[in-house]
């Protein structure tokens, strides 16, 4: 995303970036390779590009949350990723945090909607 991206676009990208890591850690509890992971994310309504996903996978691997190994037994070599035990623990923490933040945001938005209704009815 370049400098010319609008604020909503940048904010959307920020939200998506945070969600993607949790989603990846969760999905990779079952080992799979990059392209298959892209399709599964797309099926979950989290469309992602290679230029976004693969660096995230490497970064998570660098943090010790994923492991990877090449499988050369098939028609073409594929790099399979899997969430480590530490990755599962981190994923559970992040998932809990997401739930908490989601509930808090729901409360804030609900309060704001209530205030809007009050102001409309005077």
């Amino acid at each position: 995303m370049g400098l010319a991206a609008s604020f909503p676009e940048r904010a959307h990208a920020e939200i998506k970036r945070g969600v993607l890591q949790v989603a990846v850690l969760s999905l990779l509890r079952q080992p799979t390779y990059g392209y298959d992971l892209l399709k599964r994310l797309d099926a979950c309504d989290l469309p992602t590009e290679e230029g976004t996903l693969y660096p995230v996978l490497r970064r998570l691997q660098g943090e010790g949350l994923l492991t990877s190994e090449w499988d050369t037994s098939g028609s073409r070599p594929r790099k399979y990723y899997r969430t480590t035990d530490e990755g599962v623990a981190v994923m559970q923490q992040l998932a809990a945090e997401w739930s908490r933040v989601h509930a808090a945001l729901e409360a804030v938005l609900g309060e704001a909607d209530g205030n809007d209704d009050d102001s409309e009815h005077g």
Partner: protein
Amino acid sequence: MTTASTDSPVLRAYLGRLRPHLPLRTSRDILMELESDILDRVDALAERDGRDPDDEMFRHALEEIGEPEVVAQSYVRERYLVAPEAYRTFLLATAMVFGVHIVLVGIATALGHALHFGPVGIAPVGPHGLVSVLASAIHAVLLDIGITAVAFGVAGALNRNVRPGTRSFAVQATPRQAGGRALLAVLAIVVMTVFRDSLFVVVSEGRAYPLATAWTAEVMPLITAAMVGAVVKDGLYAILGERKTTLGIDAIHGAAVVALTLYLLGGDALLEVPAVPGIEMFRAPVSSFFEQLGSLVLAAIALLAAMKTMRRCVRLAQL
């Protein structure tokens, strides 16, 4: 139906454009992974269309993935000479070094002669009053920032416990960057060694003047200028809390490097602007052909580095 082939010229051309922009140590692994991904994409397109893979499908898949230079950028982490989380420590260390340096300059001034610590000389303040004091202070600041930044950069590169992505000066160079750095380092060492006492020469009105005194020849002012520019940029990142390059920060960095380099190279004479009072204390006439040649090479390196920075600003402005 056949599967997509690794021999596709479209695929090979794309990966060829991608390779020079990827980090040296991981480029092979990244290329293998992306190649596998692209082939899976093309097979999916072939299955959807009910025909064998062809160049058109490869082009379509690669369009979906994006330009190789843009894709490569996502694999290259931002690099700092001084990492944001180390910046406060760096400021404290530089202030301490500068404090010691100024005290030594004061002692040299009181004694009336230079102090020598091996190859390092600490000179007294010159005879031009406040101008000499300011010149000595500016020289001390530049030298101390440069030396401390190099120390932090080396320490950061060696510190494997630093969180990935924020490691100072992390070795994530692409082949071109690594080659360019190595070439610059070799040239700098050769020039600094051979032309130690007359590092910078300004060609002005048909005469050559070195821009170095005995006590500024110890550390190449060009490296110091580059370090100062990089540290200023790192400082702005640390203060502003931004990790992505912004046009404004790079423009300031580029302008600072250009201005500082031109000043150290005697740009006031080249540009025919009024000289800083007291600048003549740094210059003496010289006529050696090799000294002049070496300094012109150094000036060319400095200007190329500045141009590269400005080109990057232009490219950012086009995003």
